[in-house]
């Protein structure tokens, strides 16, 4: 309890101080509220827009979770396939890395042209941003197990399937979760971008509308929601990690 307090108190104080400074600045400088709303304006906007935002957030959350799940699943499949088939790895892996230099924001309009304005192009955007960190981290993890243990298992007669299930896959879990955490934050970002380029709902769409109306206060609310959503999905991954890796997490760290 006191440990948690010691850990969370300093950043909490910083946040409160920053908000207070912000409030102070807007009050003293008399800056126009459409340019920089005060924290009080932002809170007011949030409570006034509650119902409207609820629907938009639900839509974005659904889209994000769906995209994240699909992206993570594809990332895992790619990692396992490339790991098990070295030829495939040699042929595909470099291209995979290079492909990450294509900005998603540049492909997004193309996806709309091909797939229309429905959910399909949005999902593809999220999958594209999510699968890469998962695939690369997992692939790395699959190769990073202790070679002494691998030798031991082979000497003991393990076949490739047993080597994979009893050793390589469990060794890869910590790395895989690192990849999933990165993908979790990317996924919300991907969802918002995909809603900007086409769509009739979601927090991204909401931002476009409020931007046209110069409602900076509501944009701040939207930003706060995007951050909260990203933290939530990140938290889900951490929870999943605790359940899966659990008690021996310390031991894993000790043994590299």
């Amino acid at each position, binding site marked *: 309890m006191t440990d948690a307090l010691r850990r969370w108190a300093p950043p909490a104080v910083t946040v409160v101080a920053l908000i207070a400074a912000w409030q102070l600045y807007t009050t003293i400088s008399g800056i126009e509220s459409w340019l920089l709303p005060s924290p009080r304006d932002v809170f007011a906007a949030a409570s006034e827009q509650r119902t409207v935002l609820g629907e938009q957030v639900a839509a974005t959350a659904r889209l994000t979770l769906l995209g994240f799940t699909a992206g993570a699943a594809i990332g895992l499949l790619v990692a396992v396939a490339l790991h098990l088939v070295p030829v495939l790895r040699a042929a595909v892996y470099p291209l995979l890395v290079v492909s990450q230099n294509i900005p998603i924001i540049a492909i997004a309009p193309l996806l709309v042209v091909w797939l229309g304005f429905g959910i399909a192009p949005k999902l593809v955007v999220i999958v594209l941003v999510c699968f890469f960190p998962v695939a690369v981290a997992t692939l790395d993890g699959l190769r990073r197990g202790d070679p*002494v243990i691998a*030798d031991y298992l082979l*000497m*003991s*007669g393990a076949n490739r399937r047993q080597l994979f299930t*009893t050793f390589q896959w469990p060794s890869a879990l910590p790395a895989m979760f690192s990849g999933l955490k990165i993908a979790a934050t990317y996924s919300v970002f991907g969802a918002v971008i995909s809603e900007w380029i086409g769509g009739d709902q979601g927090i991204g769409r909401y931002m476009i509308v409020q931007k046209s109306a110069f409602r900076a206060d509501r944009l701040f609310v939207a930003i706060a929601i995007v951050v909260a959503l990203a933290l939530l999905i990140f938290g889900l991954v951490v929870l999943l990690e605790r359940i899966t890796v659990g008690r021996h997490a310390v*031991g894993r760290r000790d043994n590299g």
Partner: protein
Amino acid sequence: MAEQAADPVLDITDLTHRYGDLQVLAGVTLRVQRGEFVSIVGPSGSGKSTLFHLIGGLVTAESGTIALAGEPVAGRRGLVGYMPQQPALLPWRTIEENVVLARDIAGAPRRASRELARQWLDRVGLGRFARSYPHELSGGMQQRAAFLRALICDHDLICLDEPFSALDAMLRTEMHRWLLDLWEAERRSILFVTHSIEEALLLSDTVYVLTRRPATVAERVEVPFPRPRRDEVVDDPEFVRIRRRLTDLLRNETS
């Protein structure tokens, strides 16, 4: 003990192997009788680990034969119990689950394996750590678990690859006693690789001294001390004499 029965568990004849241009083994011949404790001593880099990889089937020899209980086994895996230099326990398995690892791989019935593991852990005083994870145990306890893992997989031969080289001197002495007591009660066939002549003489019935690479057998020594062997045997004049001779032999090999 050594020569009374002509029932070799391991019979290696004229084994030769090279990695690319590097000749590692040049005609190694050695034998482990049933119930015999055999050590291999050699300068570092003399191909001791290669020998184990060949016996374990990880690599296939260029020429020569390896037979386990009379059967040629070149390139076949999973036929010997093996204990590597580091404990190599899976960090996410409990000690009990680690001890049954080789049996699981061989497809032995799980419940029986667990039962056996429990009995052995109790017997060596690790019973209360059965549900612990490896990082919760000391280095010596991890080595004991790794040894049990090799012991209970029911193969005729157990291969130990410098299992105590990473331990400090005190712990090593303690592990020698532990292994001696356990082995003298069980009399399993053991092939033990070490770079310590004293360790080899203390534990073994027979010691093979390897030459430097490419390795051949420089000398085969039958250790004349009776069982059960006491710690004081290292002070016996005969022990000191043999140790001196083998040390000189090895020194000539390394220089």
